[in-house]
């Protein structure tokens, strides 16, 4: 068990190293990152100065080692838009993104798990068909459009909820629902198929034949076993939530890292873009690491001795 956790940790480090390469080369996709950063009215001398200040005149290998060693110490350079260390700004904004993503994940799970179970138990019923239809719709709908529709209904017409910002707790409702619906759509289909598979197993029949109540059979015997694939996909979906937050935060002007990324990209604030990408990837990798560990806890069949 310990060996497994350690080997996964090693893999995590290797993946983060790969991410650092992705982040490093991304801003160099056009060759010289100065071309991306420098305002159009800069002359050759000013550009040369900026290039030297950022170390872009050094050999590529040296630039990467400097970037990596600084990144490891949490130094991504200064955001020129905010005139503060990019790292500080990322941490400030990350809290909002995590809050939004957790609320969305909570909404997603609350809708998906019960809906999936009921769909599996009452297969081909009207409710099952309806939830299939809603799930397809939820996957096909662009999340930002759903957000705009909610604004039209709840802010413009009903005047119940604020359309943007994070000044009051109620402001979390619409962005979280917008993000959570997509997740619920994907997860409810999976819960349904995982439950269907488990419900046809011998141990469920045994549990039924020894006279257990339906509730006990479903919750204790079936759902516990169906949870394994659900947890995997839930982990992947959290990554999708982080990605979706970029768009949804922009729709609702939610002050998270996603919206900050768009702002930084628009003004070519390279330090912020690099730091933001790095932390999005780190969050995603850590989530998946946690999921792997949770696996061992919920699946007694997995033993790593």
């Amino acid at each position, binding site marked *: 068990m310990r060996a497994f956790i350690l080997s996964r940790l090693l893999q995590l480090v*290797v*993946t*983060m*190293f*790969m*991410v650092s*390469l*992705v*982040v490093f080369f*991304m*801003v160099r*996709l*056009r060759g010289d990152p100065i071309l*991306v950063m420098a305002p159009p009215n800069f002359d050759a001398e000013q550009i040369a100065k900026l290039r030297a200040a950022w170390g872009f005149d050094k050999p590529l290998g040296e630039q990467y080692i400097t970037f990596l060693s600084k990144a490891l110490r949490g130094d991504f350079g200064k955001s020129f838009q905010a005139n503060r260390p990019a790292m500080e700004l990322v941490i400030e904004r990350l809290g909002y993104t995590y809050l939004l993503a957790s609320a969305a994940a909570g909404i997603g799970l609350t809708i998906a798990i019960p809906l999936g179970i009921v769909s599996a138990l009452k297969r081909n019923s009207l409710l099952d068909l309806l939830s299939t239809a809603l799930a*397809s*719709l939820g*996957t*096909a*709908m*662009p999340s*930002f*459009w759903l957000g*705009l*529709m909610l*604004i*039209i209904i709840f802010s*413009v017409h009903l005047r119940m909820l604020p*359309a943007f910002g994070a000044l009051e707790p109620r402001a979390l409702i619409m962005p979280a629902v917008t993000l959570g619906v997509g997740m619920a759509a994907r997860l409810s289909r999976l819960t349904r198929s995982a439950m269907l598979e488990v419900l046809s197993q011998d141990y469920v029949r045994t549990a039924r034949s020894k006279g257990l109540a339906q509730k006990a059979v479903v919750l204790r015997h079936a759902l516990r076993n169906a949870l394994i694939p659900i947890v995997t996909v839930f982990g992947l979906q959290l*990554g*999708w939530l*982080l*990605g*979706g937050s*970029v*768009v949804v935060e*922009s*729709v609702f002007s939610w002050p998270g890292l*996603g919206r900050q*990324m*768009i702002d930084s*990209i*628009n003004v*070519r604030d390279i330090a912020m*873009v690099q730091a933001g*990408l790095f932390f*999005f*990837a780190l969050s*995603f*990798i850590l989530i998946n690491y946690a999921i792997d560990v949770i696996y061992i806890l919920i699946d007694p069949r997995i033993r790593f001795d």
Partner: protein
Amino acid sequence: MTADIASLPPRRNALLRAIATMLHSPVGATGTCIVTVVVLLALFGPQVSPHDPIKGNLRARFEAPGYSDASGIYRLGSDQLGRDIFSRIIAGSRVSVLVGVVSVLISGTIGVLYGLVSGFVGGRLDSLMMRIVDGLLAVPFIILVVAISGVVGAGLGTLILILGLTGWVTYARVIRGEVLKVREQEYVIAAYALGQRRLVVMLRHILPNVISSAIVLAAVQVGVTVLAESSLSFLGLGVKPPTVTWGLMLSDGRQYINSAWWMTTFPGIAITVTVLGVVFLGDWLRDFLDPNVRGRG
């Protein structure tokens, strides 16, 4: 004897079977209808479009759906420059189809070849290639694409390239897994025993057996790509005006969300219906191409 063989054209059979299963699958039929309509609109849009999608009519700004003047009826209303929303939705289908198809062709080709080589060669090269995939997959797709378009710059051609050159990772993963399974099959071992070269085995015996997974995945990815394009254009990082796209229409509509609901509502419906059609078609394709599922209804 020869007559018997001649009377069994296998290819036509496959096509007939496809049509027959399609007729029995309402989801597949709906998907095909939607996709056909969108593709036809993309091809023949200018011929059926009631108004000019780009030239505005300043006397008909912000008109609600159903408004009509001397130039004709504005079925779905008009926008801030008096352009007909319905005509713009027709024009926008072109970008969605183009981006969806071309990007998926690029990413599919790269991803299939990458996964094929990685799984087939195995060993250290495989580990290295898969770590690269892990690194790229660790950054959520949309964030990766947003950052790249920020650095490289926006525009239709660039956007297609960006989506094509980043989307391949998913295929690489899936195809590699399939190759690992197929690689151990008896017919592959038999091909080796017959003295076939490795490259021939890879391309003639393994590739055809993993390609159906790639086709099903491609259908899903067309939907993902259409959504990604609309998100990017909405954020101002994708296609730029005067090219008409559904994402840009939503971005316009957002500014007038308090007064002109039709500007945001209809382009979104267009995106949703299109993606739904692609998803349905993909579902049907999966059932049709997977011999284990086929016939179970």
